[in-house]
Protein backbone atom coordinates (compact mmCIF):
# COMPACT_ATOMS: atom_id res chain seq x y z
CA UNK A 1 0.00 0.00 0.00
CA UNK A 2 1.37 3.35 -0.96
CA UNK A 3 1.37 6.47 1.15
CA UNK A 4 -1.27 8.14 -0.95
CA UNK A 5 -3.72 5.39 0.00
CA UNK A 6 -3.27 6.34 3.63
CA UNK A 7 -3.73 10.03 3.05
CA UNK A 8 -7.01 11.43 4.40
CA UNK A 9 -7.76 8.25 6.33
CA UNK A 10 -7.84 10.12 9.66
CA UNK A 11 -11.60 9.87 10.16
CA UNK A 12 -11.76 6.22 9.15
CA UNK A 13 -8.85 5.56 11.52
CA UNK A 14 -10.56 7.26 14.45
CA UNK A 15 -13.92 5.53 14.04
CA UNK A 16 -12.06 2.24 13.74
CA UNK A 17 -12.99 0.96 10.29
CA UNK A 18 -9.46 0.55 8.99
CA UNK A 19 -8.05 -2.96 8.89
CA UNK A 20 -5.02 -3.48 11.16
CA UNK A 21 -2.72 -3.22 8.13
CA UNK A 22 -4.36 0.00 6.95
CA UNK A 23 -4.23 1.43 10.46
CA UNK A 24 -0.53 0.64 10.62
CA UNK A 25 0.09 2.30 7.26
CA UNK A 26 -1.83 5.34 8.35
CA UNK A 27 0.22 5.64 11.54
CA UNK A 28 3.39 5.56 9.47
CA UNK A 29 2.00 8.09 7.07
CA UNK A 30 1.05 10.32 9.98
CA UNK A 31 4.65 10.81 10.99
CA UNK A 32 5.37 12.69 7.82
CA UNK A 33 2.06 14.26 6.87
CA UNK A 34 1.20 17.37 8.83
CA UNK A 35 -2.15 17.66 7.12
CA UNK A 36 -3.25 14.22 8.28
CA UNK A 37 -1.89 14.87 11.75
CA UNK A 38 -4.08 17.97 11.94
CA UNK A 39 -7.04 16.12 10.55
CA UNK A 40 -6.53 13.45 13.19
CA UNK A 41 -6.92 16.05 15.94
CA UNK A 42 -10.17 17.20 14.32
CA UNK A 43 -11.42 13.66 13.90
CA UNK A 44 -10.77 12.87 17.55
CA UNK A 45 -12.62 16.00 18.58
CA UNK A 46 -15.67 15.04 16.53
CA UNK A 47 -15.52 11.48 17.85
CA UNK A 48 -15.39 12.79 21.39
CA UNK A 49 -18.45 14.93 20.67
CA UNK A 50 -20.24 11.85 19.31
CA UNK A 51 -19.62 10.09 22.60
CA UNK A 52 -21.47 12.80 24.47
CA UNK A 53 -24.71 11.58 22.87
CA UNK A 54 -24.43 8.36 24.84
CA UNK A 55 -22.99 9.71 28.10
CA UNK A 56 -23.98 7.44 30.97
CA UNK A 57 -23.15 7.71 34.65
CA UNK A 58 -21.06 4.73 35.76
CA UNK A 59 -21.96 3.04 39.05
CA UNK A 60 -20.37 4.56 42.16
CA UNK A 61 -18.49 1.32 42.88
CA UNK A 62 -16.46 1.85 39.73
CA UNK A 63 -15.12 5.14 41.06
CA UNK A 64 -14.10 3.49 44.31
CA UNK A 65 -12.43 0.66 42.47
CA UNK A 66 -10.58 2.91 39.98
CA UNK A 67 -9.28 5.21 42.71
CA UNK A 68 -8.16 2.22 44.72
CA UNK A 69 -6.26 0.67 41.82
CA UNK A 70 -4.49 3.87 40.80
CA UNK A 71 -3.40 4.53 44.39
CA UNK A 72 -1.38 1.33 44.04
CA UNK A 73 -0.21 1.92 40.46
CA UNK A 74 3.07 3.55 39.56
CA UNK A 75 3.07 6.23 36.89
CA UNK A 76 5.28 6.00 33.87
CA UNK A 77 8.11 8.49 34.12
CA UNK A 78 8.75 9.17 30.49
CA UNK A 79 11.22 11.85 31.48
CA UNK A 80 11.45 14.32 28.63
CA UNK A 81 14.68 15.64 30.09
CA UNK A 82 17.12 12.78 29.82
CA UNK A 83 20.63 12.93 31.14
CA UNK A 84 21.85 14.13 27.77
CA UNK A 85 19.79 17.28 27.66
CA UNK A 86 21.33 19.32 30.48
CA UNK A 87 24.74 19.03 28.82
CA UNK A 88 23.35 20.52 25.67
CA UNK A 89 21.50 23.26 27.46
CA UNK A 90 24.37 24.28 29.65
CA UNK A 91 26.58 24.46 26.58
CA UNK A 92 24.07 26.72 24.92
CA UNK A 93 23.56 28.81 28.01
CA UNK A 94 27.27 29.23 28.64
CA UNK A 95 28.15 30.21 25.14
CA UNK A 96 25.22 32.55 24.89
CA UNK A 97 26.33 34.23 28.09
CA UNK A 98 30.02 34.34 27.38
CA UNK A 99 29.64 35.44 23.82
CA UNK A 100 30.16 39.20 23.75
CA UNK A 101 28.03 39.67 20.68
CA UNK A 102 25.10 37.89 22.29
CA UNK A 103 25.33 39.99 25.42
CA UNK A 104 25.79 43.31 23.77
CA UNK A 105 22.81 42.74 21.56
CA UNK A 106 20.47 42.01 24.39
CA UNK A 107 18.38 45.00 25.28
CA UNK A 108 15.28 45.14 27.45
CA UNK A 109 12.44 43.48 25.61
CA UNK A 110 9.97 46.31 25.51
CA UNK A 111 12.52 48.18 23.46
CA UNK A 112 12.51 45.23 21.09
CA UNK A 113 15.54 43.66 22.66
CA UNK A 114 17.10 40.80 20.89
CA UNK A 115 20.40 39.70 19.60
CA UNK A 116 21.93 39.68 16.20
CA UNK A 117 24.55 37.34 17.60
CA UNK A 118 25.10 35.02 14.74
CA UNK A 119 28.28 34.29 16.56
CA UNK A 120 30.23 31.43 15.11
CA UNK A 121 31.30 30.57 18.63
CA UNK A 122 27.73 30.03 19.70
CA UNK A 123 26.90 28.13 16.56
CA UNK A 124 29.88 25.84 16.93
CA UNK A 125 29.16 25.12 20.56
CA UNK A 126 25.50 24.49 19.96
CA UNK A 127 26.20 22.24 17.05
CA UNK A 128 28.82 20.32 18.95
CA UNK A 129 26.52 19.93 21.90
CA UNK A 130 23.61 18.85 19.77
CA UNK A 131 25.64 16.45 17.73
CA UNK A 132 27.62 14.75 20.46
CA UNK A 133 25.89 15.16 23.76
CA UNK A 134 22.50 16.35 22.98
CA UNK A 135 19.27 15.87 21.33
CA UNK A 136 20.14 13.10 18.95
CA UNK A 137 21.19 10.92 21.82
CA UNK A 138 18.09 11.83 23.68
CA UNK A 139 15.93 10.98 20.71
CA UNK A 140 17.51 7.56 20.55
CA UNK A 141 16.97 7.14 24.21
CA UNK A 142 13.34 8.15 23.94
CA UNK A 143 12.88 5.71 21.12
CA UNK A 144 14.46 2.98 23.19
CA UNK A 145 12.39 3.92 26.20
CA UNK A 146 9.23 3.88 24.15
CA UNK A 147 10.04 0.41 22.89
CA UNK A 148 10.95 -0.86 26.34
CA UNK A 149 7.74 0.41 27.78
CA UNK A 150 5.83 -1.35 25.04
CA UNK A 151 7.51 -4.65 25.77
CA UNK A 152 7.59 -4.45 29.52
CA UNK A 153 4.18 -3.14 30.29
CA UNK A 154 2.29 -4.37 27.23
CA UNK A 155 0.76 -0.96 26.93
CA UNK A 156 -0.94 0.15 23.83
CA UNK A 157 1.56 -1.05 21.28
CA UNK A 158 0.38 1.29 18.61
CA UNK A 159 1.03 4.34 20.71
CA UNK A 160 4.47 3.17 21.67
CA UNK A 161 5.40 2.52 18.09
CA UNK A 162 4.29 5.99 17.19
CA UNK A 163 6.42 7.42 19.96
CA UNK A 164 9.43 5.44 18.84
CA UNK A 165 8.96 6.44 15.26
CA UNK A 166 8.45 10.05 16.16
CA UNK A 167 11.61 10.06 18.26
CA UNK A 168 13.59 8.33 15.54
CA UNK A 169 12.28 10.79 13.04
CA UNK A 170 13.20 13.68 15.29
CA UNK A 171 16.71 12.30 15.42
CA UNK A 172 16.91 12.02 11.65
CA UNK A 173 15.70 15.54 11.33
CA UNK A 174 18.34 16.84 13.70
CA UNK A 175 21.13 14.92 12.08
CA UNK A 176 19.92 16.34 8.83
CA UNK A 177 19.77 19.86 10.25
CA UNK A 178 23.22 19.71 11.77
CA UNK A 179 24.81 18.31 8.67
CA UNK A 180 23.53 21.15 6.51
CA UNK A 181 26.16 23.46 5.03
CA UNK A 182 24.22 26.52 5.98
CA UNK A 183 23.31 25.64 9.57
CA UNK A 184 23.46 28.65 11.86
CA UNK A 185 22.58 29.53 15.40
CA UNK A 186 21.46 32.84 16.87
CA UNK A 187 20.94 33.56 20.54
CA UNK A 188 19.13 36.02 22.70
CA UNK A 189 19.16 36.39 26.42
CA UNK A 190 16.72 37.94 28.82
CA UNK A 191 17.99 41.02 30.69
CA UNK A 192 16.68 39.43 33.89
CA UNK A 193 17.82 36.02 35.03
CA UNK A 194 19.72 33.41 33.12
CA UNK A 195 17.07 32.77 30.54
CA UNK A 196 18.54 32.15 27.11
CA UNK A 197 17.07 31.22 23.79
CA UNK A 198 18.89 29.96 20.72
CA UNK A 199 17.49 29.27 17.30
CA UNK A 200 19.37 26.68 15.24
CA UNK A 201 18.29 26.66 11.63
CA UNK A 202 19.13 25.61 8.11
CA UNK A 203 17.43 27.17 5.14
CA UNK A 204 18.59 24.33 2.93
CA UNK A 205 16.96 21.72 5.11
CA UNK A 206 14.00 23.88 6.00
CA UNK A 207 14.42 22.96 9.65
CA UNK A 208 14.61 25.23 12.68
CA UNK A 209 14.65 24.46 16.38
CA UNK A 210 14.50 26.68 19.42
CA UNK A 211 16.59 25.77 22.45
CA UNK A 212 15.59 27.58 25.64
CA UNK A 213 17.06 27.25 29.09
CA UNK A 214 16.36 28.64 32.54
CA UNK A 215 12.74 29.24 31.66
CA UNK A 216 10.73 30.51 34.62
CA UNK A 217 8.37 27.91 36.06
CA UNK A 218 4.92 28.10 34.51
CA UNK A 219 1.95 28.93 36.71
CA UNK A 220 -0.90 26.39 36.65
CA UNK A 221 -2.85 26.49 33.43
CA UNK A 222 -0.20 28.36 31.46
CA UNK A 223 2.04 27.27 28.62
CA UNK A 224 4.86 28.81 26.67
CA UNK A 225 4.11 29.72 23.11
CA UNK A 226 6.67 30.43 20.42
CA UNK A 227 5.93 32.97 17.71
CA UNK A 228 7.51 33.76 14.41
CA UNK A 229 7.44 37.53 13.97
CA UNK A 230 7.30 39.27 10.65
CA UNK A 231 7.81 42.88 11.61
CA UNK A 232 5.18 43.31 14.32
CA UNK A 233 3.07 40.45 13.00
CA UNK A 234 3.13 37.27 15.14
CA UNK A 235 2.27 33.78 13.86
CA UNK A 236 1.92 30.92 16.35
CA UNK A 237 4.88 28.53 16.08
CA UNK A 238 3.96 25.96 18.70
CA UNK A 239 3.22 25.66 22.40
CA UNK A 240 5.33 23.88 24.96
CA UNK A 241 5.23 23.27 28.69
CA UNK A 242 8.60 21.91 29.76
CA UNK A 243 8.84 19.78 32.87
CA UNK A 244 11.90 21.57 34.06
CA UNK A 245 13.31 24.92 33.01
CA UNK A 246 14.67 23.74 29.66
CA UNK A 247 13.05 23.06 26.32
CA UNK A 248 13.90 22.09 22.76
CA UNK A 249 11.12 23.00 20.36
CA UNK A 250 10.86 22.44 16.65
CA UNK A 251 9.73 25.63 14.95
CA UNK A 252 7.41 25.99 12.00
CA UNK A 253 8.38 26.61 8.41
CA UNK A 254 7.36 30.24 8.86
CA UNK A 255 10.65 30.76 10.68
CA UNK A 256 12.32 31.13 7.31
CA UNK A 257 10.18 34.09 6.37
CA UNK A 258 10.29 35.64 9.81
CA UNK A 259 12.37 38.46 11.22
CA UNK A 260 12.49 37.10 14.73
CA UNK A 261 11.26 34.37 17.05
CA UNK A 262 9.61 35.32 20.34
CA UNK A 263 8.32 33.34 23.30
CA UNK A 264 5.42 34.39 25.52
CA UNK A 265 3.43 32.86 28.34
CA UNK A 266 -0.14 32.00 27.33
CA UNK A 267 -3.19 30.26 28.76
CA UNK A 268 -3.23 26.46 28.34
CA UNK A 269 -3.94 25.52 24.76
CA UNK A 270 -2.12 28.56 23.46
CA UNK A 271 -3.43 31.77 21.89
CA UNK A 272 -3.97 33.06 18.39
CA UNK A 273 -2.21 36.30 19.28
CA UNK A 274 0.27 36.92 22.10
CA UNK A 275 -1.50 38.09 25.23
CA UNK A 276 1.66 38.83 27.22
CA UNK A 277 5.00 40.49 26.52
CA UNK A 278 7.70 38.21 25.16
CA UNK A 279 10.06 36.77 27.73
CA UNK A 280 12.68 36.78 25.03
CA UNK A 281 13.09 37.46 21.35
CA UNK A 282 15.74 36.13 19.01
CA UNK A 283 16.42 38.21 15.91
CA UNK A 284 16.94 35.96 12.94
CA UNK A 285 19.72 36.42 10.40
CA UNK A 286 18.70 38.46 7.42
CA UNK A 287 17.95 36.59 4.27
Amino acid at each position, binding site marked *: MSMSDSH*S*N*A*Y*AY*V*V*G*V*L*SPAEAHDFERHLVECGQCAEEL*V*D*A*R*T*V*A*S*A*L*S*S*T*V*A*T*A*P*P*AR*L*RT*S*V*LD*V*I*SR*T*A*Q*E*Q*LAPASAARPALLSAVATTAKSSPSADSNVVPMRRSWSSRGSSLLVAAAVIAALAFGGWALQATQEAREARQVAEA*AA*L*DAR*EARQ*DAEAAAKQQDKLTNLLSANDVRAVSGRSPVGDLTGTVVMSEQRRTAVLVASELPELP*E*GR*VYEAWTMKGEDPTPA*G*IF*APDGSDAVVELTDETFDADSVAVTQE*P*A*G*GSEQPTTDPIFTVLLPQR
Partner: protein
Amino acid sequence: MVYMPALPIHELVPLMAQVSRGDQQAFAQLYDATSRKVFGIVLHVLRDHAQAEEVTQEVYVEVWRLARRYDSTQGSVTAWLNTMAHRRAIDRVRSAERRTQRERRHFEFQTDDRSPDPSELVVANDEGRRVRDALAQLSEGQRTAVELAYFQGKTQREVAEVLQVPLGTVKTRIRDGMQRLRKQLGEAAS
Protein backbone atom coordinates in the same frame (compact mmCIF):
# COMPACT_ATOMS: atom_id res chain seq x y z
CA MET B 1 -25.65 9.69 42.56
CA VAL B 2 -25.20 13.43 42.63
CA TYR B 3 -24.76 14.98 39.24
CA MET B 4 -21.84 17.32 39.11
CA PRO B 5 -21.49 19.50 36.07
CA ALA B 6 -18.42 18.62 34.08
CA LEU B 7 -15.55 21.02 34.43
CA PRO B 8 -15.09 23.36 31.49
CA ILE B 9 -12.75 21.74 29.01
CA HIS B 10 -9.93 24.25 29.43
CA GLU B 11 -9.74 23.45 33.14
CA LEU B 12 -8.97 19.84 32.40
CA VAL B 13 -5.51 20.64 31.02
CA PRO B 14 -4.08 21.97 34.29
CA LEU B 15 -5.86 19.14 36.08
CA MET B 16 -4.11 16.71 33.78
CA ALA B 17 -0.78 18.34 34.64
CA GLN B 18 -1.48 17.74 38.33
CA VAL B 19 -2.40 14.15 37.58
CA SER B 20 0.87 13.65 35.76
CA ARG B 21 2.66 14.70 38.94
CA GLY B 22 0.90 11.95 40.88
CA ASP B 23 -1.92 13.99 42.39
CA GLN B 24 -4.62 11.45 43.24
CA GLN B 25 -7.14 14.07 44.24
CA ALA B 26 -6.80 15.75 40.88
CA PHE B 27 -7.27 12.35 39.30
CA ALA B 28 -10.54 11.88 41.20
CA GLN B 29 -11.69 15.26 39.88
CA LEU B 30 -10.70 14.26 36.37
CA TYR B 31 -12.66 11.05 36.78
CA ASP B 32 -15.74 12.91 37.97
CA ALA B 33 -15.54 15.34 35.10
CA THR B 34 -15.11 12.74 32.36
CA SER B 35 -16.37 9.33 33.46
CA ARG B 36 -19.90 9.70 32.10
CA LYS B 37 -18.61 10.18 28.64
CA VAL B 38 -15.97 7.48 28.88
CA PHE B 39 -18.31 4.93 30.47
CA GLY B 40 -21.08 5.91 28.06
CA ILE B 41 -19.13 5.22 24.89
CA VAL B 42 -17.62 2.02 26.24
CA LEU B 43 -21.02 0.76 27.35
CA HIS B 44 -22.59 1.73 24.07
CA VAL B 45 -20.01 -0.13 22.03
CA LEU B 46 -19.85 -3.18 24.31
CA ARG B 47 -23.50 -3.35 25.33
CA ASP B 48 -22.58 -5.18 28.47
CA HIS B 49 -22.45 -3.48 31.84
CA ALA B 50 -19.87 -5.70 33.52
CA GLN B 51 -17.48 -5.55 30.59
CA ALA B 52 -18.00 -1.81 30.24
CA GLU B 53 -17.01 -1.31 33.86
CA GLU B 54 -13.94 -3.44 33.37
CA VAL B 55 -12.84 -1.56 30.26
CA THR B 56 -13.58 1.83 31.81
CA GLN B 57 -11.37 0.92 34.73
CA GLU B 58 -8.60 -0.16 32.37
CA VAL B 59 -8.86 3.15 30.57
CA TYR B 60 -8.56 5.20 33.73
CA VAL B 61 -5.67 3.17 35.06
CA GLU B 62 -3.94 3.79 31.74
CA VAL B 63 -4.71 7.49 31.96
CA TRP B 64 -3.10 7.53 35.38
CA ARG B 65 -0.06 5.56 34.27
CA LEU B 66 0.53 7.47 31.06
CA ALA B 67 -0.62 10.91 32.20
CA ARG B 68 2.67 12.43 31.14
CA ARG B 69 2.04 11.53 27.56
CA TYR B 70 -0.95 13.78 27.29
CA ASP B 71 -0.09 16.53 24.84
CA SER B 72 -2.50 19.43 24.67
CA THR B 73 -1.43 20.22 21.11
CA GLN B 74 -2.92 16.90 20.06
CA GLY B 75 -6.41 17.73 21.25
CA SER B 76 -8.46 18.14 24.41
CA VAL B 77 -8.16 15.94 27.47
CA THR B 78 -11.63 14.52 26.81
CA ALA B 79 -10.67 13.70 23.23
CA TRP B 80 -7.59 11.88 24.53
CA LEU B 81 -9.62 9.85 27.01
CA ASN B 82 -12.27 9.20 24.43
CA THR B 83 -9.70 7.90 21.95
CA MET B 84 -8.40 5.39 24.46
CA ALA B 85 -11.86 4.37 25.62
CA HIS B 86 -13.25 3.91 22.13
CA ARG B 87 -10.24 2.00 20.90
CA ARG B 88 -10.28 -0.38 23.84
CA ALA B 89 -14.00 -0.96 23.52
CA ILE B 90 -13.67 -1.68 19.79
CA ASP B 91 -10.75 -4.03 20.39
CA ARG B 92 -12.78 -5.84 23.00
CA VAL B 93 -15.83 -6.12 20.76
CA ARG B 94 -13.78 -7.46 17.88
CA SER B 95 -12.02 -10.10 19.93
CA ALA B 96 -15.28 -11.05 21.62
CA GLU B 97 -16.94 -11.21 18.24
CA ARG B 98 -14.39 -13.66 17.03
CA ARG B 99 -15.08 -15.86 20.02
CA THR B 100 -18.78 -15.84 20.59
CA GLN B 101 -20.62 -14.16 17.85
CA ARG B 102 -23.97 -15.67 18.51
CA GLU B 103 -23.90 -14.98 22.19
CA ARG B 104 -23.19 -11.34 21.64
CA ARG B 105 -26.09 -10.91 19.27
CA HIS B 106 -28.34 -12.24 21.95
CA PHE B 107 -26.85 -9.79 24.42
CA GLU B 108 -27.27 -6.93 22.06
CA PHE B 109 -30.94 -7.73 21.68
CA GLN B 110 -31.45 -7.86 25.41
CA THR B 111 -29.53 -4.78 26.38
CA ASP B 112 -31.01 -2.71 23.60
CA ASP B 113 -34.33 -2.72 25.41
CA ARG B 114 -32.81 -1.43 28.60
CA SER B 115 -34.62 1.75 29.53
CA PRO B 116 -32.39 4.54 30.79
CA ASP B 117 -32.42 5.21 34.49
CA PRO B 118 -33.12 8.78 35.66
CA SER B 119 -29.47 9.61 36.27
CA GLU B 120 -28.76 8.92 32.62
CA LEU B 121 -31.40 11.38 31.57
CA VAL B 122 -29.74 14.11 33.59
CA VAL B 123 -26.64 13.29 31.66
CA ALA B 124 -28.40 14.03 28.38
CA ASN B 125 -26.39 17.21 28.44
CA ASP B 126 -26.25 20.20 26.17
CA GLU B 127 -23.38 18.85 24.17
CA GLY B 128 -25.20 15.58 23.61
CA ARG B 129 -28.27 17.39 22.39
CA ARG B 130 -26.30 19.59 20.04
CA VAL B 131 -24.50 16.60 18.57
CA ARG B 132 -27.74 14.68 18.11
CA ASP B 133 -29.20 17.66 16.27
CA ALA B 134 -26.14 17.82 14.07
CA LEU B 135 -26.27 14.08 13.41
CA ALA B 136 -29.87 14.40 12.30
CA GLN B 137 -28.77 16.75 9.55
CA LEU B 138 -26.44 14.28 7.87
CA SER B 139 -27.61 12.30 4.89
CA GLU B 140 -28.92 8.92 5.91
CA GLY B 141 -26.00 7.16 4.28
CA GLN B 142 -23.49 9.28 6.16
CA ARG B 143 -25.25 8.96 9.47
CA THR B 144 -25.65 5.21 9.22
CA ALA B 145 -22.02 4.77 8.25
CA VAL B 146 -20.83 6.85 11.20
CA GLU B 147 -23.17 5.11 13.64
CA LEU B 148 -22.39 1.58 12.52
CA ALA B 149 -18.68 2.22 12.61
CA TYR B 150 -18.26 4.40 15.66
CA PHE B 151 -21.01 3.17 17.97
CA GLN B 152 -21.23 -0.44 16.94
CA GLY B 153 -17.63 -1.11 16.07
CA LYS B 154 -18.48 -2.54 12.67
CA THR B 155 -15.61 -3.08 10.25
CA GLN B 156 -15.41 -1.37 6.90
CA ARG B 157 -16.63 -4.55 5.20
CA GLU B 158 -19.57 -4.93 7.55
CA VAL B 159 -20.61 -1.32 7.07
CA ALA B 160 -20.33 -1.75 3.30
CA GLU B 161 -22.55 -4.82 3.44
CA VAL B 162 -25.23 -3.12 5.49
CA LEU B 163 -25.22 -0.05 3.29
CA GLN B 164 -24.82 -2.04 0.06
CA VAL B 165 -22.02 0.19 -1.15
CA PRO B 166 -18.48 -0.52 -2.38
CA LEU B 167 -15.81 -0.75 0.32
CA GLY B 168 -14.16 2.52 -0.60
CA THR B 169 -17.41 4.41 -0.28
CA VAL B 170 -17.54 3.65 3.43
CA LYS B 171 -14.47 5.72 4.19
CA THR B 172 -15.72 8.60 2.06
CA ARG B 173 -19.12 8.60 3.76
CA ILE B 174 -17.57 8.57 7.19
CA ARG B 175 -15.18 11.33 6.33
CA ASP B 176 -17.81 13.50 4.69
CA GLY B 177 -20.27 12.89 7.50
CA MET B 178 -17.81 13.65 10.27
CA GLN B 179 -16.46 16.74 8.57
CA ARG B 180 -19.99 17.99 8.21
CA LEU B 181 -20.62 17.27 11.88
CA ARG B 182 -17.51 19.15 12.76
CA LYS B 183 -18.61 22.13 10.73
CA GLN B 184 -22.08 22.16 12.23
CA LEU B 185 -20.81 21.80 15.76
CA GLY B 186 -18.34 24.57 15.15
CA GLU B 187 -21.11 26.85 13.89
CA ALA B 188 -23.43 25.97 16.73
CA ALA B 189 -20.72 26.75 19.25
CA SER B 190 -19.91 30.15 17.85
